[in-house]
C-alpha cells in the first residue's frame, strides 16, 4: 500500500480520506474496501521515513485535517518505483508442496489432489466471470484486473494438466 499512496500524492497534496476515495474510484469493486485506519497508519509511517510531509489544516466544525505532500525524496522514491520492474507472482508453492510430498506420506492420492485443486480453480473462475459481468463495463481498470486474474488461473489450470500428464 505504501508506494501506491505515495504515487497518488504525486498528482497533488491530499488528506487521508481523499486518498481513500481516490483508491476506491480507481479500482472499483475488484479492490476490497480500503481500510481507513490502515491508510492513516501507512501515511504516518511514510511521514516518519521522510517521504511525505504533513500539514495540519484547521477546520471549523470538525477535527483538524492533516494534508500530506510529497517531499523530494518521496518523488524520487515514486520515480524509482515506476522504473523498477515488478517481481512476477510466485508459483503457488503450497499446493506444489502437497503434490510433491503426497506419495511419500501415503495419505493422499496425487490425482485426487489435482482434481480437487482443479475444481477449486474452476469455481474461482466462475466467480470471477460473475464479477466481471457485475462490474461496470466501462471501468476498464477493474475489467483488466479481473481478466488478469483469469489469465493467471488459466495458466494454473494448464500447469495442473501438465502435472496430471506427467504424473499419471
Amino acid at each position, binding site marked *: 500500500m505504501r508506494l501506491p499512496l505515495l504515487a497518488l500524492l504525486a498528482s497533488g497534496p491530499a488528506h487521508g480520506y481523499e486518498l481513500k476515495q481516490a483508491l476506491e474510484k480507481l479500482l472499483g469493486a475488484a479492490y476490497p474496501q480500503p481500510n481507513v485506519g490502515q491508510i492513516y497508519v501507512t501515511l504516518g509511517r511514510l511521514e516518519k521515513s521522510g517521504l511525505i510531509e504533513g500539514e495540519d489544516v484547521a477546520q471549523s466544525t470538525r477535527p483538524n485535517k492533516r494534508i500530506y505532500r510529497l517531499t523530494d525524496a518521496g518523488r524520487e522514491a515514486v520515480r524509482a518505483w515506476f522504473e523498477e520492474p515488478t517481481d512476477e507472482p510466485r508459483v503457488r508453492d503450497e499446493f506444489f508442496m502437497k503434490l510433491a510430498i503426497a506419495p511419500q506420506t501415503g495419505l493422499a492420492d496425487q490425482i485426487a489432489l489435482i*482434481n480437487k485443486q*482443479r475444481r477449486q480453480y*474452476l469455481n474461482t473462475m466462475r466467480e470471477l466471470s460473475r464479477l466481471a459481468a457485475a462490474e461496470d463495463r466501462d471501468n476498464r481498470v477493474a475489467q483488466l484486473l*479481473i*481478466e488478469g486474474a483469469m489469465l493467471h488461473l488459466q495458466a494454473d489450470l494448464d500447469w495442473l494438466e501438465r502435472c496430471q500428464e506427467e504424473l499419471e
Partner: protein
Amino acid sequence: MSLSEAPAGTGPTAPADAPPLVRAEGLVKTHHGEGAPARAVRGVDLTVSRGEFVAVTGPSGAGKSTLLHLLGGLQKPDAGSIWFDGTCLDSYGESQWAVLRRRRIGIVFQFFNLVSNLTVADNVELPALLAGSSPKGARADRAELLAELGLEGKERSMPGELSGGEQQRVALARALVNHPDLLLADEPAGSLDSRGTREVLRLLSRFHGRGQTIVMVTHDARMASAADRVISFFDGRIADDAALDADAPGLRRRGKGVSGVLELKD
C-alpha cells in the same frame, strides 16, 4: 416454437428422474494413422441430462474431439453403445445419423463450419430445408436467429467476407435453426480472440438459460467454467467429472470482491 419459449421442465437443474438425453457406455475409438495406432477414446461412459451444459477439457491429443464426433455420429465407435433420448443408435448407418443430425443434433466446429459458396442466409437455412421446412418457414427462422445473434444485414455476405467471430456466430445460428435437442460444440472459440470468445460464451450461456443442452469441448478455462459440469479428459479416459457450483459448501470462501485477486503488499 420460437426460441424465446423455454421447454417446460428444463432449466439449469433438470428433475432427477427425467431420462438422460445422451447416454454412452464403453465407447472405444482407435485412430489408424501413420505409425502406431492411437487409442483416442478408451472405454468412456457418459450421461448428459436435458438442459445440462457439459464442458470437456483436457490436453490436446487426449481425444476430446473424437468423443464429440462419436456423440454426433461423425465417426463410428469401434466398441460401445450410444443412446439418444432412449433410442439405441448402434445400428444406425450413415444415412440415419445424417437424418438425426438434421433435426435433433446441431454441431459447431472450430473451423470449416460454413459452406464456402453459399451466402450466410443460405448457410443458415440449409438445415431447415433439409429437415423439411417450407422455404418461408426456413426464412423466418433464419431471420429470427440472425437478429438474435446480432448479424442483421449480413444475410447476403459470403463466409469469406466475415470475421472469425462473425463466422462462428453464423455457425451457431446454423446449428440452432432447427431447435435441436443437443448442441455439440468443438472448440467453438478456439480460433477467436478474447473478444470473440466472450461473444460466443455469452451466446452459449444465453441459450443454455433457455434450456438448450450443450456438450462443449474446450481448453479455455473461462469457457469451461461457464458450464454446469466439467469433465476432465485425459489420455482417452474421463479423469474427473465435477459439477461446478460456486455456492456449494466446502469450497474455500474468500471475501467479497475477490480480495484474493489483488493482494497489495503492505
